[in-house]
């Protein structure tokens, strides 16, 4: 009886969290999946069941496919450049340089800013007429490199990527730093006694012991880049043309500009499945390693 009462007591304590989880995660997930089979404008009560039509349309939609491609480009750039910079910064801060705590705080400021704010900051930096970037190029006598960074089809996506990496680098940095601090110092001391160089320590101690952190950071980077939205809206709103269209922006526009709520939910489901598969593959690859 006592055991039963204990179980009930424990269950009572779990109920609020469970209720929250079901209400705000499970139910919306189920509802999203259900709505993806309907044609619905998002407002009226008139919902028409269309089966898999929304999914079939998605695979034929050039703008959606372009947004996926852009998402992958942003993910790739972030994986290579943002994470390399974050890793380098984490190693520097972990090496015991002066003011390490200060840098730790400074690098973590961009991630806590709202995406919209970051978007406007970079919009001002990139402004073709009065922006700081073109101004700097003038000062450096490099005026021939000046351009409307966000309006030029050749530079728009890269410019968006740089802004998003600037915001994201601090998040990866903190995770890398935590990973580095978890490596026992005596491993480095022992290797030093054996005459290992810095690079040998890096490749044979740091990298292998950081593999779990690297995997987590990679997954979070891809998830973040593929779901980029708030920075893109103030910077380019997907333009020029569809050059900086990203999946989340496409979903948002289909739902709230084109009144195609059913289609937008189908796109959400597809994006969710895609990200789930990517994450699974990464975890699988790490296990193979």
């Amino acid at each position, binding site marked *: 009886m006592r055991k039963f*009462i204990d179980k009930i*007591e424990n269950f*009572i304590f779990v109920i609020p969290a469970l209720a929250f989880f079901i209400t705000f995660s499970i139910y919306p997930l189920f509802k999203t999946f259900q709505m993806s089979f309907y044609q619905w*404008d*998002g*407002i*009226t*009560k*008139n919902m028409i069941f269309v089966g898999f039509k929304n999914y079939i349309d998605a695979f034929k939609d050039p703008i959606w496919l372009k947004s996926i491609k852009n998402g992958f480009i942003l993910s790739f750039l972030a994986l290579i450049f943002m994470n390399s910079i974050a890793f380098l910064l984490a190693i520097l801060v972990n090496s015991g340089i002066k003011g390490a705590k200060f840098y730790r705080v400074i690098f973590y400021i961009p991630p806590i800013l709202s995406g919209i704010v970051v978007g406007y900051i970079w919009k001002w930096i990139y*402004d*073709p*007429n*009065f922006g700081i970037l073109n101004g700097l190029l003038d000062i450096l006598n490099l005026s021939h490199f000046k*351009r*409307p960074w*966000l*309006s*030029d*089809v050749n530079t*728009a996506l890269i410019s968006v990527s740089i802004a998003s990496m600037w915001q994201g680098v601090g998040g990866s940095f903190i995770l890398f730093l935590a990973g580095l601090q978890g490596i026992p110092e005596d491993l480095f001391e022992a290797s030093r006694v054996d005459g290992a160089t810095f690079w040998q320590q890096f490749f044979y101690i740091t990298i292998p012991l950081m593999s779990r952190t690297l995997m987590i950071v990679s997954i979070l980077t891809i998830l973040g880049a593929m779901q980029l939205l708030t920075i893109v809206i103030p910077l*380019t*709103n*997907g*333009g*020029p*043309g*569809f050059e900086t269209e990203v999946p989340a922006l496409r979903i*948002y*526009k289909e*739902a*709230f*500009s*084109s*009144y195609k709520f059913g289609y937008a939910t189908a796109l959400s489901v597809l994006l969710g499945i895609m990200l789930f598969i990517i994450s699974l593959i990464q975890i699988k690859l790490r296990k193979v390693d």
Partner: protein
Amino acid sequence: MRRLLGKILGIVLVLTIVLVLSVSYGKETVKITIWHYLNDRDKLLKTLATQYYLKTGVRVEFQLYSGDQMGAKIRAAAQARTLPDAWTGVGLKGDLSKLAQAGNILNLTPYIKDWVSRFPENIVAQVTFTKDDGFNVEPGTYGIPLDVNNMQFLYNKDLFKKAGLDPNKPPKTWNEFIEYGKKLKAAGILPFATGFGTWAGLTMIQPYEFAYLGEEKLNAARMGKITFKDAGYVKVLNLLVEMRDAGMFAPGTATMDLPTAEQMFANGQIAMIFDGSWAIGVFKMMNPNFKNYFVFFPPKDERASYQALIPGGIGAYFVVNKDSKYIKETIEFLKWLTDVPQQAKYAKESFNLPANKNTIDPRTLGPQIAEFVKGMDRVYSYLAPYKNPRTEEILVKGMQLIILGQKTPEEVVKEMDEANK
């Protein structure tokens, strides 16, 4: 177990007391919440709300949101049934009809029948559904107009003078417009910008849609009855090519939003802009010293067969939530807000054209506003919705790429026709 039950009962008791207190506190005053996107008039609306509170004891809270995102916010709130008591409508009959069909907005006809005559009939018609208009909405008026507006070109007289142009003679023909652009460019002045990144670029080409296609063909193409190619839409987009080739677009115009273009114009950084009559108040807010500018009607293109008509008509208007607890009080407030003294204050302080026709003559408010008043006679009355709403997005994006020289008008028209099937 007893202690646990005691604790749970205690928490329930405290929550009940808090709930009862908050409900009884809420009964003390009526509080109406209104969402709006009138950035430059936020302070004025709040002042008027305070004035109303002192007069009646009814609190009105105006909440400001971004104009570009207001539509999405309303649609999201409509789904969640969390709309405020009233809000400034976004879009016209197409958007309104969906909210009306879903039972989100109130048919105001029985509430405003005694005082709706204070607004011009053609303005009220823009928010009124009739039996056979095809929108499938209960006939009636669903909006209360606050102001009227139209969109035209504006130019900076000082910059015109600097480029050797007569500051009192804005371009009258399209050829002149292009020539003026070239001269401004040659003088090192950025000739033109508007919000091609969002919706404002569309409105710039609308007068020429009417001029080249005529009302009938234009609406037939929008509704998918004929193709844009057959309607001759390429000629409309060619105007952007001519502007681009003349070097008229300021760098970044392709993805620029309207507030950025307005800020540049108010700072004297561009010579011309396509904007609405509300911009007079916006410029005043952005740069109070900027006064030497004027307005001109879209220059006539000799190659076009029809008359150019400009966007405009009803400006800001309010709709009322059908589920509001304070329907009567909200409508009473809107009646007061659109009455002569408040409309006069609104016009004088915001430089917007009041919707109440009995208010002061807005022409007395300044030469620019007087010029916009003249334009009210040439506002188009009807523009059909696109068969597929995505066509509009294809056009906006296509215009951006034409400005950048990445696409031809023919390519964009082809994509529009594919989208509008």
